[in-house]
């Protein structure tokens, strides 16, 4: 399991625009580098992040090799109801890394 960091407000007013931050510790290996033995290091990146809020997809991004290590993504959404924000990062090999945070909307 890779280390992830989330910043989601614990509480918000209904209709408020909230800022979400998400980071995952990942080397984002491009596939264009040589290892010390002269052999190419195979590509291995996080290629997609999806965020769902109370079951509905509110944000998704495709990530590419030019994105640096430990990708840090910030976006905004509207606080509509209390619930769980779930984050899923997908790696090239299909592995999915999950994290979630709860928000209370008053």
């Amino acid at each position, binding site marked *: 399991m890779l280390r992830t*960091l989330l910043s989601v407000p614990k509480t918000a007013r209904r209709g408020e625009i909230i800022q979400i931050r998400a980071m995952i510790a990942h080397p984002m290996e491009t596939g264009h580098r040589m290892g010390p033995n002269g052999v190419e290091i195979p590509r291995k990146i996080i290629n997609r992040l999806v965020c769902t809020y109370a079951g509905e997809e509110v944000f998704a991004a495709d990530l590419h090799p030019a994105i640096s290590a430990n990708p840090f993504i910030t976006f905004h959404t509207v606080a509509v109801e209390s619930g769980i924000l779930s984050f899923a990062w997908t790696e090239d090999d299909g592995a999915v890394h999950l994290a979630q945070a709860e928000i209370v909307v008053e």
Partner: protein
Amino acid sequence: MPSPSGSPPGAPRHFTGRRTLLLAAGAAGLGAPALLAQTPPRVVVVGGGFAGATCARDLAAAGLAVTLVEPRAEYVACPFSNAVIAGLRQMEQQRFSYAALEANGLRRIAQPATGLEDGRVLLADGTTLPYDRLVLAPGIELRFDAITGYDAAAAGRMPHAWQAGPQTLLLRQQLEAMPDGGVVAIAAPANPFRCPPGPYERASLIAHYLKTHKPRSKLLILDAKDSFSKQRLFEAAWQALYPGLIEWVSLSFGGNVTEVDAAEGVLVTEFGRHRADVANVIPPQRAGAIARVAGVTDASGWCPVDPVTFESRLRPGVHVVGDAAIGGAMPKSAFTANAQARACAAAVVALLAGETPRPPKLINTCYSLLAPDYGISIAGVYSPRNGLLAEVEGAGGISPADAPPEIRAAEAAHAEGWFRVITQAVFG
């Protein structure tokens, strides 16, 4: 690129020659008004830190009419001020007066420079100083607009102590007043900033103080970077000397401080909040204010310069040395400031004599003290390449990773020796 515009048109090629002529005329008892009217070229140096004082001294030694603009009566040196914070050294050992420079024929104007206008430096009292060439050595200005809630007033509660003086003592007093078991937090900025190993030397020496006097306390470094100068040496020493005491939170572990609440002692990062009993916030920096007013800073807030002459890329006839200048690969240190200032002085002398300055080879060494008897260093040699100062491959070095205690103790002594020698050379 060195611009000829700083030399007044028609100026004689060799000002030292003019000086000899002047003396000869005086000796012959001739009024010779044409000769007497020719005074040595005037150079104004703004800022009396390691860069400015060095440059002024060298320029005066070369026979130029040098005016040093520095409002402070004494200089308080930053190198070794971390030892003052940790109670290992007295503030008096950091203070240096300008008396020796003034005794060497340097004129010092004790007021701040407020601007530039048509080859003249404007002073706070409204008077102006004409110059043939100007050297700006304004050091750094702390950016009180970079971290939400961290302004000059907040620095009274969360000292930066990144310009030695009252802030240094404030941080020391806060550490002394903190109860055992408290949390000390250091917020370290992203590159570039003054003294790249400085926050980590400070963490080491504060850890030494805590281990000695308040062993249940903790030290947290919240960093806006993922790596830092001499990192492996620092981390190995922290393991060996202060196990479990120092926690370093890097950028990608959520270490970037974006906001502070100085009254509550809270530091807010992108992913969390940390409460500290003593908070040392080292904010991002830029070139000293006069550099911006003089129009020699670029969008980065620092000053692009020609690496041979240190003449500004943005304003001909104005040179910038020390922390304010974009030194390419050279770190912002007192050692660098001194080396750049000497090269700049030589270039200014050459330019005023109509000669072509020679590309310099510059050396920097950064010593860091991790305990009173534990020193490490990193050294580099730099020369102009592609318009910047670049490191000469294979010429530098760093302390070995697995050195015996005698080597660390010897390096701690070398650091002291370096400080004695450089302060003597610049201010003595």
